[in-house]
């Protein structure tokens, strides 16, 4: 009889002891958490894929509750999850500014010069290793399409050696921003239509030698902007998007046309 009772007793008491310890621990170590976090975790896919850049869905739920992540941060869940998340976070989060990625380089095959002809593996991360890529300008788009390959939403096209991002398809998942070895893809507010499409920190003379459409540091945009939205650092003009009103004076005045609309066809839709 003891052969049966002993193991049952031992195992039962061990389990009970652990149960009690865990129950006490959950009280002692109780950490007040935002109830929104649990709700958010329920609507997120739970795949823990990490595509959002946070460690798993719980990481994203925390970031969402803290307002650090955009409601559409989950690229797997898409619009459906984004709507649910926005519901949980309430009206205030609906005001979160939508962002889109934009490629800050226009030096395509015709406008930018090459140092050499690259015939290796078509991956910017690799071609970048060969003396900063084949372009004379060490800041420009290498055109291998690595950003297009990582984009899960088919939003990036390679046209004449330069990546173009479709503003409507872009979900701001930032995959391309992370993967670009030249760091020329940046997030800008969706409501703004103008970007300085050059990242070259070379002096103007060097830029002019390398590329027809780079920022030469003439500061015409800084002087002409009616909203005072331009600053100038590292030989580059920079737009403060909080001040920019899409007046497009800079686009008109820029001598090299490196300040440009994000997408050409859009010019019809903008009230000037």
């Amino acid at each position, binding site marked *: 009889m003891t052969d049966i009772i*002993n*193991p049952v007793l*031992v*195992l039962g008491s*061990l*389990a009970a002891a*652990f149960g009690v*310890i*865990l129950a006490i*621990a*959950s009280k*002692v*170590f*109780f*950490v007040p958490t935002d109830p929104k976090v649990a709700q958010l975790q329920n609507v997120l896919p739970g795949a*823990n894929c*990490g595509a959002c850049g946070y*460690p*798993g869905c*719980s*990481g994203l739920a925390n970031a969402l509750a803290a307002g650090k992540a955009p409601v559409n941060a989950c690229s797997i869940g898409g619009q459906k999850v984004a709507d649910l998340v926005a519901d949980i976070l309430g009206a205030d989060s609906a005001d979160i500014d939508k962002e889109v990625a934009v490629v800050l380089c226009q030096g395509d095959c015709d406008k930018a010069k090459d140092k050499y002809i690259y015939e290796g*593996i078509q*991956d910017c*991360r*690799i071609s970048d290793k060969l003396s900063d890529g084949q372009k004379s300008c060490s800041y420009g788009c290498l055109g291998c399409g690595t950003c297009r390959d990582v984009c899960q939403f088919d939003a990036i096209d390679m046209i004449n050696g330069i990546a173009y991002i479709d503003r409507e398809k872009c979900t701001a998942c930032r995959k391309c921003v992370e993967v670009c070895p030249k760091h020329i893809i940046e997030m800008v507010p969706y409501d703004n239509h103008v970007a300085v499409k050059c990242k070259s920190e070379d002096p103007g003379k060097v830029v002019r030698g390398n590329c027809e459409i780079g920022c030469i540091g003439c500061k015409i945009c800084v002087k002409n902007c009616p909203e005072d939205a331009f600053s100038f650092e590292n030989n580059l003009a920079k737009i403060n998007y909080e001040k920019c009103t899409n007046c497009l004076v800079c686009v008109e005045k820029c001598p090299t046309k490196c300040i440009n609309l994000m997408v050409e066809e859009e010019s019809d839709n903008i009230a000037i």
Partner: protein
Amino acid sequence: MSSIFTILISTILVNNYVFAKFLGICPFLGVSGKMETATGMGVAVTFVTTLAGIVTYILQKYVLDSLGLGYLQTIVFILVIASLVQFVEMAIKKMSPTLYNALGVYLPLITTNCIVLGVSILNIQEGYTLIETITSSVGAALGFFLALVLMAGLREKLELADIPEALEGFPITLIATGLMSIAFSGFAGLV
């Protein structure tokens, strides 16, 4: 002293739990995609394996053996390890949010991972003392850590390599694991 050193070398290199005993293959394949997650998982496993090794040793010696209930080993160990990981997770969450952010995601994943259970059971089977048990647990976890980090480094490079389509992803990872396992068998003469 020499036996401790022997155990350490043996568990890390010669009898590496991933490459020689094929335990812990699931997390090994699952989280070896990126170096960052691999180190996080490695640290978490080291932590849990060592703790579990100590606690299961004490339980085996003072509860199971003294009552003659050695056959309950597996089920008791699973119970202990699962509760322990839960407890540690709660404690860390309260005491050190930074550590929790670094380890937290991985802790539930290793609740009753076979490598944690395997190390605890093998320690008992080898008849180790407490010091030897701790050494063996740390060694086993470091071996796992090493395997994970090596694999993560390899897979980060593999992503850029030109692999036949049929072999992309897990197949090539498994092939690489097999080759690394063969390479690790070269350590066999060390101990």
